[in-house]
């Protein structure tokens, strides 16, 4: 068993491979992807008008990043994410924690929250447009609706996972209900709250694009729709790349924040 592992790790079930090889394989997949893409364009297999090659997209991205307009679009998008996500978090995190701590509050709110979760947020767009007009209102509202109900339930579930022995220990040390909530439940669930926020921020980007494509004059999504009108496929694809990069950046920032905020977490125990 161990012999076959050392000789042919790549085809042995569950055999570990070196970190260098793992990275090389990951890069190889991307290289292959771009190669096939470029090849398909160069050989005329696809029309460049509908699918420009990766080099063209990269060039367009560079050109766009040199214009102020593109940065204004990016700024508008990021601002929408920040405002709506802050509003959703301010409501969802405390509510989720108390719902996870008191069964009566869970029983009261949970069926309501659960029902809203299964209503697709974009289905509210027509009515949001009627209520809020075409300004920032409907976009912020859509992002808020898309995030808040999921975040509440995630935070509630994580709060319910706080170990009972922690709570009972604090009570036998003389902790009152409020003290146990503040000094045990909140710090115990906080790392997972950050995890839940990271997960929901990714969802937030999805709704952002929908909001900006449907009804917006600025933002990355709106820029892409403008580009479509003039058949600037390369600009659309540059927009997709930027959204992907921004999403990845948010995720990375949350990961780093998690590591810095919670140095006491035993990663090996997970």
């Amino acid at each position: 068993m161990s012999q076959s592992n050392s000789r042919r790790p790549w085809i042995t079930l569950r055999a570990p491979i070196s970190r260098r090889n793992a990275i090389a394989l990951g890069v190889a997949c991307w290289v292959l992807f771009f190669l096939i893409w470029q090849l398909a364009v160069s050989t005329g297999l696809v029309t460049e008008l509908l699918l420009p090659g990766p080099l063209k997209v990269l060039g367009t991205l560079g050109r766009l990043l040199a214009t102020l307009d593109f940065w204004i679009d990016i700024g508008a998008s990021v601002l929408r994410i920040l405002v709506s996500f802050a509003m959703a978090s301010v409501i969802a995190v405390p509510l989720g924690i108390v719902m996870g701590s008191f069964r009566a509050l869970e029983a009261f709110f949970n069926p309501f929250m659960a029902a809203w979760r299964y209503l697709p947020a974009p289905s509210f767009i027509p009515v949001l447009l009627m209520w809020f007009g075409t300004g920032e209102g409907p976009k912020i509202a859509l992002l808020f609706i898309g995030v808040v109900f999921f975040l509440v339930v995630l935070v509630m579930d994580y709060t319910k996972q706080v170990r009972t022995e922690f709570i009972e220990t604090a009570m036998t040390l003389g902790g009152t209900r409020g003290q146990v909530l503040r000094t045990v439940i909140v710090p115990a669930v906080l790392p997972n709250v950050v995890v839940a926020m990271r997960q929901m921020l990714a969802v937030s980007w999805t709704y952002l694009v929908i909001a900006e494509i449907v009804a917006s004059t600025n933002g990355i999504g709106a820029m892409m729709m403008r580009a479509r009108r003039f058949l600037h496929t390369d600009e659309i694809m540059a927009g997709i790349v930027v959204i992907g990069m921004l999403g990845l950046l948010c995720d990375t920032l949350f990961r780093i924040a998690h590591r810095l905020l919670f140095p006491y977490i035993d990663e090996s125990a997970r």
Partner: protein
Amino acid sequence: MRLQLENIGKTFPESKGGTVEAIRDVSFEVGANEVCVLLGPSGCGKSTILRMVAGLDRPTSGTIALDGRAIEGPGRDRGMVFQAYTSFDWLTVRQNVEYGLRLRGVPAAERHARAAHFIDLVHLTKFADAYPKVLSGGMKQRVAIARTLANEPEILLMDEPFGALDAETRWHMQELSISIAEETGKTILMVTHDIEESIFMADRIVFLSRHPGTVAANIVPAFKQGKRWRRKEEVLELDGYAELERDIMRLMRQQAGAEAAG
């Protein structure tokens, strides 16, 4: 300090409807400075009894009183050490031990001094500023013991505190607990299913039978000559140890036999 349990009964509702009687008519007392061990086969309800003393569960019938005051809920006069590790992982060892003191606003200087004393008592001074993630299982239980003692409970409750530890760490912890009992004069009520542990630790063993759990015997290990021995092997080689261990094993087996027959 006097803990009194009088005619304690506990029934739990069953999923099918109806109830199951877990504990029936349990009465015993624990006096000041005593190390009392609740021993019995699994399913005898010994942990439930301890939880009721802690105020985490309520008896269906009977009364539990500490110094004549009926127990209504958890309180810092009855500190509890659980089998599962309960070191708060977001606090350092020192902050863990100070936790109870901080809750009731003990001034920082006094808090630090008291925590340092109890951290030293459980030999963790070198780890005072470490987070629990770097501690072994035995060290985590020592944090739990120090944290409970620093809070100055009237009685220390321990629910199979060494059950999750390996054999070697376990007897080190048993000896450490005995020396702590000697040095602090603290009253201890401990639950275990380990016969050897109960004989080594106990001034008195309350043996429980099961289905329903009730007091089957009150055993004082007289062969220990009313003394607490700090080394386990000293107790194991005393005349009378083997006989008591054998007698308790027979009691345990009777319980198992009754189970098999019934």
